């Protein structure tokens, strides 16, 4: 443990995630407020944030709990909303192969939207998978820690923040910061365009299925555009 805390990559990963941790604070606060509004105790709220560790699933869970939905409906809805983690897991897998099983499991547990967006760039650029893994672990632990703190802050004091500040807008901004630098090639832009149109067009689908369907359509579009570009330049 001490070796981990003094490791340069681990510390850099922790520090690099601090701006994003700040950006997700409003989301964490919203989740804490939601848990309190649904009548959960502080232990239940902490259980959600520490173990489920996914803002979207936490909000869906407390909304459905408050509405008195059956357990099976809550579980299924949260599971479907979390299907994007399967896609992240697949995209991370080739990079994590050289790491130990324990290391892989730790990174898998900490896999979130922000952690994925930040670490996939690191793994793409890094020569040493272990260094990128430690960087990713540092970032994941930073996010997890701040997530608990902001969820608790929301649980106890979230109702004090006026809605007119639109603080929740920091959440999409954080994703924009992580994804805009990717938009450099034609297939990447094609992937984003198709995913963007699809997610809005399919907004009527239940259980936020539009997110994962649009993501898959975008990935397919990007891959096809990649093949097309290859044929084009090969001539």
């Amino acid at each position, binding site marked *: 443990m001490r070796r981990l805390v003094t490791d340069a990559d681990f510390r850099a990963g922790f520090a690099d995630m601090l701006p994003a941790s*700040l950006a997700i604070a409003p989301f964490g606060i919203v989740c804490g407020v939601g848990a309190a509004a649904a009548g959960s105790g502080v232990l239940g709220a902490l259980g959600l944030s520490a173990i489920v560790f996914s803002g979207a699933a936490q909000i869906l869970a407390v909304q459905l709990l408050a509405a008195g939905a059956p357990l099976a409906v809550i579980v299924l809805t949260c599971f479907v909303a979390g299907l994007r*983690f399967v896609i992240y897991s697949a995209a991370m897998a080739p990079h994590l192969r050289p790491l130990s099983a324990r290391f892989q499991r730790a990174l898998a547990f900490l896999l979130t939207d922000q952690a994925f967006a930040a670490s996939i760039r690191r793994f793409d650029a890094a020569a040493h998978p272990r260094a990128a893994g430690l960087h990713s672990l540092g970032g994941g632990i930073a996010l997890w820690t701040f997530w608990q703190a902001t969820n608790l802050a929301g649980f106890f004091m979230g109702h004090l923040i006026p809605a007119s500040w639109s603080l929740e807008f920091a959440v999409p901004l954080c994703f924009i910061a992580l994804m805009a630098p990717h938009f450099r090639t034609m297939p990447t832009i094609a992937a984003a365009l198709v995913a963007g149109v699809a997610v809005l067009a399919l907004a009527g689908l239940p259980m936020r299925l539009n997110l994962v369907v649009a993501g898959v359509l975008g990935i397919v579009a990007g891959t096809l555009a*990649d093949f097309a570009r290859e044929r084009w330049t090969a001539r």
Partner: protein
Amino acid sequence: MDGALKLGLVVAIVGALNCLSRLSFIAIFARRRVPSLLVRAFRYVPAAMLTALVLPMVVGAPVAPMAATWPKACAAILAGVVAFRTHSTLKTLAAGMVALWLLQAGLRAIG
């Protein structure tokens, strides 16, 4: 069912399912070669998934009123430009939030 018990079950079951989702392919590919077609497809995961995640947060629910949508859309586009040029999360956050507050204040001033 008692509320606290139900919440405890939600935490346990959803927590376990989320862990399985997160671990799924990391565990599957730990001992297998990843097909080259998939490696190519994985390059487009960040752009596709994050766009699908962000867009509904910016333009709101399917039928959000225009007045609520366009300041956010403008602020998001500006933030995208800042992110593309600076690669800085903090500068992107600052540009996006300040732009949104100014646009909302302007909107309130006109009426």
